[in-house]
């Protein structure tokens, strides 16, 4: 199993969610996060006082999928979250050792 962690622009969250539904992904976890990469922060000016806002709001989407689905899911997220501008985000893929469904005790891919 793989965990796919995608940090995307907040306004792209719905597109990402729908794209994942299309490839049969049943659930996901999202978190509101802040950070910066090559996009850097932005400036706000209040009565001439200029403040640099380093950390920009993003949404982190986490899904765990079977090994053979991982490449397709990553491609789908990339397609859905892409605007072509700096700050579109990043996708990380991790190995997952085990998954357990709390209600039934099923394990592995069956628990996803």
């Amino acid at each position: 199993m793989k965990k796919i962690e995608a940090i995307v622009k907040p306004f792209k969250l719905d597109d990402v969610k729908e794209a994942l539904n299309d490839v049969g992904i049943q659930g996901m976890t999202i978190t509101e996060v802040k950070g910066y990469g090559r996009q850097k922060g932005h400036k706000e000016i209040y009565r001439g006082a200029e403040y640099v806002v380093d950390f920009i709001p993003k949404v982190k989407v986490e899904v765990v999928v079977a090994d053979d689905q991982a490449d397709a899911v990553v491609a789908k997220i990339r397609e859905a979250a892409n605007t072509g501008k700096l700050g579109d985000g990043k996708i990380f893929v991790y190995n997952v050792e085990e998954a357990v469904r709390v209600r039934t005790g099923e394990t592995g891919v069956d628990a996803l």
Partner: protein
Amino acid sequence: MIAKLLNPLALVLLLPASALAADGLDTGDTAWMIVSTALVMMMTPAGLALFYGGMSRYKNLLNTIAMTMVAYCLGSIIWVMWGYTLAFGPSKAGLFGGFDFFFLNGIGVDSLSGTIPTYVFLLFQMTFAGITVALVLGSIVDRMKFSSWVVFTILWLTFIYAPVAHWAWGGGWMGSMGALDFAGGTVVHINAGVAGLVLSFMVGRRIGYGKEAMFPSSITLTALGAALLWFGWFGFNAGSQLAADGVAGSAFLVTNTSAAMGALSWMFAEWAVTRKPTVLGLASGVVAGLVAITPAAGFVSMPASLVIGLLAGVLGYVSVSKLKNMLGYDDSLDAFGVHGLCGIWGALATGLFANPAVNEIGTGLFYGNPKQVWIQFLSIIGTAAFSAVGTFVVAYITKLITGGLRVDHEEEIVGLDNAQHGERAFEIQNV
């Protein structure tokens, strides 16, 4: 105009015979002044509290509201005990009023000030005292001890506000000299602005000033506060005629025109320089325009108010965005930049644009009376100098009484809402 009623000499010299004949209570004037008083009252605990509160940081929002509200409450009490008599009692050498009306002694339901009951007049004046001291706090939010603010407010109203109000409106030297201040350019705005500047030096800069980002807690609240100030200012300026007449109507007109012009010019100046027309800029410009028209409101015609508002917006913007950085003082919410400097501009503009066709009491440079500019200049210098020295002394005494003017380092970092009041302005949870 206030001075007209209170300076017996001016009364005899300047009032037309018809007005003298009409002496006695006028119900129309009285009704308007009761409404005006309520309008001006709203400016402090609602208008200014939101205007300033929204600009202060999220952790100091309640403290800002608390300081504003307590200033109005203290002003209300001090005024009816000894403030009114110090400002409007029989003049002692043109410097302050005598103690004849201590605790409103001798004033009853039949007492009149011009055509309105003295009770209404003194209440109207009370709302001015309340807002003036509250304006000062804009310079020191985020760091002054609440106890120090309470002591400072009591001393400042007694020893600074009351005498200056006497000078301009209570029969004191500024009014006698012929200085024109319709609704408080010197008494309210220059006085409060200069006091704020001095107090900001004495309290010192905020921790992290110029290095850390200090975001306003809510520009929404600030914009709403500016709108309430604007609304209340109709009472402030049109009410200062102390009558429901044509001059009051004219004051209403130029007040609105100057406020709108100030907002537009601040917005366009900012748009040109930093490429964004901000809401904070619009709200600030409204107040800049209102401040500048205040001394001129009952004296100038509509075209003059366009110029007064236009320059007030640009002056306010330049002073808060450039001048403050150049000079390096931390006037947190720009009480000096907006009220002090735009007040000075308004007081000078009154000397330039006062139009005898609007009000025969005032004739400015452009109508053939260059001397008025000099008189206005003296009244500005007199007010600013007294306010600067007086505020220094009053703040110094406050410091001795309360053991320092400033919260300690940790309290300042935590925020004054929590440290001084044990409360929080917002409860927002993500889950």
